[in-house]
């Protein structure tokens, strides 16, 4: 077994992609088998046209969004991270932050081989916790903790998870790379002021590639003009 680093790295990528594909196919089949088995088991007669009409709107809305989002997440959390995140969901509020803060902790860059590993580990751990909490809640603790969690005094806290999370995530990265941050922030803020924050949020998936491209474009311009200070070890590829 004398493989070169590149061969090992390719072998790992193949393993992840095969594992991701196979587990995705099985999960998908299992997910769809739930309504299928129930429909057959209870001999429920369904109106297919109505199902398609109702699902059609959702599909038209969510399918393009899913494509744009997955392509946007990929460079940050890697293929393994995307396979895992798409199965358990809650990407923006849990999986992405878990992966980013894991990478920051480990001192590795998103998109590097090390970054991809740390992403997979963080996202899998996060999935595990959410699934376990929901399981426990359904069986036992849900009845007991819901009255506390629904207390009006706590509502502002739950309503503001996203801004709090973003504040904690964004700040260290912005301070670390002020120059790269200027363009995407200026553009996003301008968009919100011009079109309204609500509108931008609703069509976030469609603005996402736009802002990401602009951000990369500006970074490339500064990189070519040698306006960015690169750490000596940056760009090493393993």
């Amino acid at each position: 077994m004398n493989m070169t680093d590149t061969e090992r790295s390719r072998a790992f990528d193949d393993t992840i992609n095969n594992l991701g594909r196979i587990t995705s196919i099985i999960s998908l089949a299992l997910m769809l088998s739930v309504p299928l088995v129930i429909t057959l088991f209870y001999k429920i007669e369904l109106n297919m046209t109505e199902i398609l009409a109702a699902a059609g709107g959702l599909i038209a809305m969510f399918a393009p969004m899913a494509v744009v989002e997955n392509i946007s997440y990929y460079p940050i959390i890697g293929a393994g991270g995307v396979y895992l995140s798409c199965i358990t969901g809650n990407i923006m509020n849990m999986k992405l932050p878990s992966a980013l803060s894991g990478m920051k902790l480990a001192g590795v860059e998103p998109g590097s081989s090390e970054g991809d590993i740390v992403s997979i580990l963080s996202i899998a751990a996060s999935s595990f916790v959410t699934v376990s909490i929901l399981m426990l809640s359904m069986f036992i603790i849900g009845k007991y903790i819901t009255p506390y969690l629904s207390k009006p005094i706590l509502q502002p806290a739950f309503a503001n998870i996203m801004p709090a999370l973003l504040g904690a995530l964004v700040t260290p990265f912005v301070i670390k790379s002020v120059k790269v941050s200027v363009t995407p922030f200026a553009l996003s803020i301008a968009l919100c002021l011009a079109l309204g924050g609500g509108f931008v949020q609703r069509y976030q998936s469609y603005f996402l590639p736009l802002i990401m491209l602009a951000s990369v474009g500006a970074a490339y311009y500064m990189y070519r003009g040698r306006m960015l200070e690169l750490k000596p070890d940056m760009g090493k590829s393993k």
Partner: protein
Amino acid sequence: MNYLEVANSNTMFFMCALVVLFVMLQAVLFIKVAWKRGMEIGIERPVMKKAMTNAALFSVIPSLPIVIMLMVLSVNLGQYFPWLRLSVVGSATYENMAADIVAKASGLAGIADPGFDIPIFAMSMWVMSVGIIWGIVFNIFFMKSLDKFSKKAKESKSHFIPVLSGALFIGMLALMSAPYITNTKNTTAIVSFISAAIAVLLCGKASKVSGIKMIDEFSLPISLIVGMASAIVYTSAF
């Protein structure tokens, strides 16, 4: 027969549990593969452990609103199907919206309408399942090619690659943050954002000054709680 008898049946429980267990197995398989590869490329064991503990701990807080949603949805959809939907791909807002669309398409006022019967329940299950699977479908067909293509590009060993992924995720975070920062009508969100930002910086400082690495390692969960708590304090004070 009432639809809730179907929704709370053993068949339903068994089918849902099967999916949830498989999703947990998937997470374990990914951890195994990633851990092995992490050791191979020289990421230290404690670093990987740290990333996972951080992700696990952090994920507890954003899971709590999902518990509330589980309790809310189970009133009308029985306890098992919402458990499945929220454990796998679903998000609180999506599930509510999808179930509501079906109820309205069937001429009811909403999911709490007394006219909600077994066929409508089955239809909800189908629509909720089919509407949200597109990220997974995309991964099955295209993720491997996307990964291959982008890994090839990375082999150029350009120094721009780390700058590129940095610019991509700063772009994403900027677009997500802007609607909160610019919404002067919702000052609570701005307060949460800023408090969490300050907290994360203080955690970094405190950790450096005191030499206690733990503070920096758990800066994300700590800052998230600080941001959420400030929302409570701010709303009750003003």
